[in-house]
């Protein structure tokens, strides 16, 4: 088990850095607190759900924005949902970008929307990568512990 300590530490450090960089916020902590013996994979489950949902939403958003006549209300609804789910897991930067995205939608600013979409996609892929890394490390930890 000692061999795991470094890994454990690594995980902690890494997580801390994610917080510091604003990728994650306190909500993520809450998720972690919810995880316990009876619910050992809770965080992973939820975040995985988030990934799936976000992928779908981003897809919808991309499609909506290339329409000839853009339905801003629908756009707004999607963004709103993405904002909600990202905030639920604590993906702070994604959430923030969603907020500005929504503003563009409300202003019916197509340019702004396109830009925001890019930003969202960017932030999302970032946080996704990082979380996946984190999960891998945790898996190793669990595996290492036997």
């Amino acid at each position, binding site marked *: 088990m000692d061999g795991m300590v470094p890994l454990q530490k690594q995980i902690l450090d890494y997580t801390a850095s994610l917080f510091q960089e604003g990728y994650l916020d306190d*909500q993520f902590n*809450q*998720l972690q*607190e*919810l995880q316990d013996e009876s*619910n050992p994979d*809770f965080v992973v*489950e*939820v975040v995985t*759900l*988030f990934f*799936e*949902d976000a992928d779908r939403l981003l897809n919808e958003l991309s499609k909506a924005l290339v329409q000839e006549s853009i339905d801003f209300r629908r756009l707004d*609804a999607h963004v*709103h*949902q993405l*904002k*909600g*789910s990202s*905030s*639920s*897991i*604590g993906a702070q930067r994604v959430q923030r970008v969603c907020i500005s995205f929504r503003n563009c939608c409300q202003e019916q600013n197509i340019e702004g929307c396109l830009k925001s979409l890019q930003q969202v996609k960017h932030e999302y892929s970032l946080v996704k990568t990082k979380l996946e890394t984190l999960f891998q490390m945790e898996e190793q930890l669990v595996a290492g512990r036997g």
Partner: protein
Amino acid sequence: MTVEDQIDRFPVGMRVLAVDDDPTCLKVLENLLRKCQYHVTTTNQAIEALRMLRENRNKFDLVISDVNMPDMDGFKLLELVGLEMDLPVIMLSGHSDTKLVMKGVTHGAVDYLLKPVRIEELKNIWQHVVRKKNFDPRDQNKASNDKRGPNNAEEGNQSIMSDDGGDQNKNLGKKRKDQTEEEEDDGEGNGEDNDDPSSQKKPRVVWSVELHRKFVAAVNQLGLDKAVPKKILDLMNVEGLTRENVASHLQKYRLYLKKATQQASMVAALGSTDSYLRMGSIDGYAEFCTPTGSGRISSNALQSYASSGIFGRLNSPASLSMRSISSSTLIQPPVQPPNLNSTLSPLGNIQASIFPANQTPGLLHGIPTSIELNQSKQNCTTGITQVNQVSCSGFTAASGFRDSRHTVGTASNSLPSAASSNSLMLQGNSQQTHNLGAFRNQPPVRPASFGTDSFDVGICGPSNMLDYNRCNENWQNAAQLSKFPAHPLPLCEPFNNDPLPSTGISVTNTNTHIGHSPVDYSSRVAISIPLEDTGNELQRQEGLIGNILQSSSYTTPSQRWEEHKLEYSQNLSRPFNSVNSEVSLSRVTSSLGHNVNQKNATCSNSVDASFVAQLSGAPPSITRCTNDDTTLKSNDAYILEQMKSQDGFIQNNFGTLDDIMVPIVKREQNESTFLDGEMGFEAYPVGSCI
């Protein structure tokens, strides 16, 4: 875990149903709730949630729902759950928009949470379940009725309880109602204050005509027996209105109806002019309140009136008409016509409240009938009836009601002394017109206000009751009633005076807000009388007034009316004719009412004249009351007065009405012969009132 266990270990094991289309959020929520040791069921579809809830309401203690969902709006779900299952619902949203939160609250949500949801917030959601249970008399769990403490005073409790419980509350409420009947007077004030014993005092809610109308509509829709504050609140969908407000208002309304019924009978017995007015008012109002589906009342009311022989009475002093109507209308159970609801409700309520307060039940009674008349516009009439009531001195007595009532009563009083009861009507209207909203404070709205509301007379009564504000609305509707001829008592609808012309009553429309109600009343009243068949709103409105009048005089005046009045007169006359004897009185009243509405007072005058004539048996001339016809004289005078006052009012306010009325008036004038004799309205005190 058995249910008992759950209950014992509450809040542990509390059964929550979570609804959110976002899977991520739903999962997080589910786990958070599990962490709080609740028993969680989730679904991402609102429809599915409803199905589960309907399947077994007792399976859940609390519902948490997202606001934005693709298959159903969260607020809609909230409403349905509240109405059908009466479970506490917490709204969840990523938005913190004040408007949304307000919407949630007004739809009955017990709480509004923002995403991301934190566990701390979820830890306390059980309080909502407890709160609801406590208020629910039915609840076996500790019911904390005592928690609320006696402070609420029955009313408060009642309202609270009613809010929570559905049927239970109702029963409880009813019980309370009885208990507090005597306290009705105080109740008014208490109702609101005591409504929420647990929470801080809420600002007093002014039950405007419009609000009352909605209330009545909601109550009618639910059925008076099943109307619980929470559901009413949901149906009304008014921001800022609390269940407590609705509960207390409901209580008053019920009382009002009760009184109206009593009044009606009383009126019949009374036969005195004053009583008529009162009755009319009461009835109208009652009808009003109950907006018995607008249609219902009228027919019923009318019939009741006729039967009650009030009509006969009507013939007697002008006031009669109103009154008789009222009595008949009173008969109408709070059926609350949907239409009436809105406008009448306030009135009705007022009346109800008034009744207790008013001594002059007669007036009110009469009014209620009118309310019924209009079925649709019933609301309008109620206004009228109310007015009557209000006018009834007793009305003023109705301290319970907001001041408005007094005003109404006063108004009427101020109205021609001659008219006696009639004046009341007018007064009521006048008052109404004025203030409808201001009801409370408004001093006898008097015809002055009529200008627009000419209805005020009739309306005044109710408006006073209502909050006056409401009355206005009602009046307007009432006024619309006068317009009826064209449409079904618009009374209920806020008259905007547009179409008034048709019905003398439109008075309400004209300006009044009051018009609505008052008009309705008048029409209602009159209408209730046989008018019903005509279905003309006017008739309703007028029915109340006119009905009585109609029978006698109406025919004549109506003729005139018809022409100008357009439908109104026709309606009036029609219905009246049927009623004839009795109606005549009503007609007079209605005409008064009409007059009120329409500035054309002339029309109303004529109407009144006719009514008056009829009432008194004299030639309808009364109806002719056209402005100058004060001939309405006492009996008619009342009507006339109304008319006159209406004229006064109407003319003032109704810009539109004038146009309409003018032709009518002219006609009337020609016929003024009617009035001369009969009308004798004492020169419209109404006018003066106004």
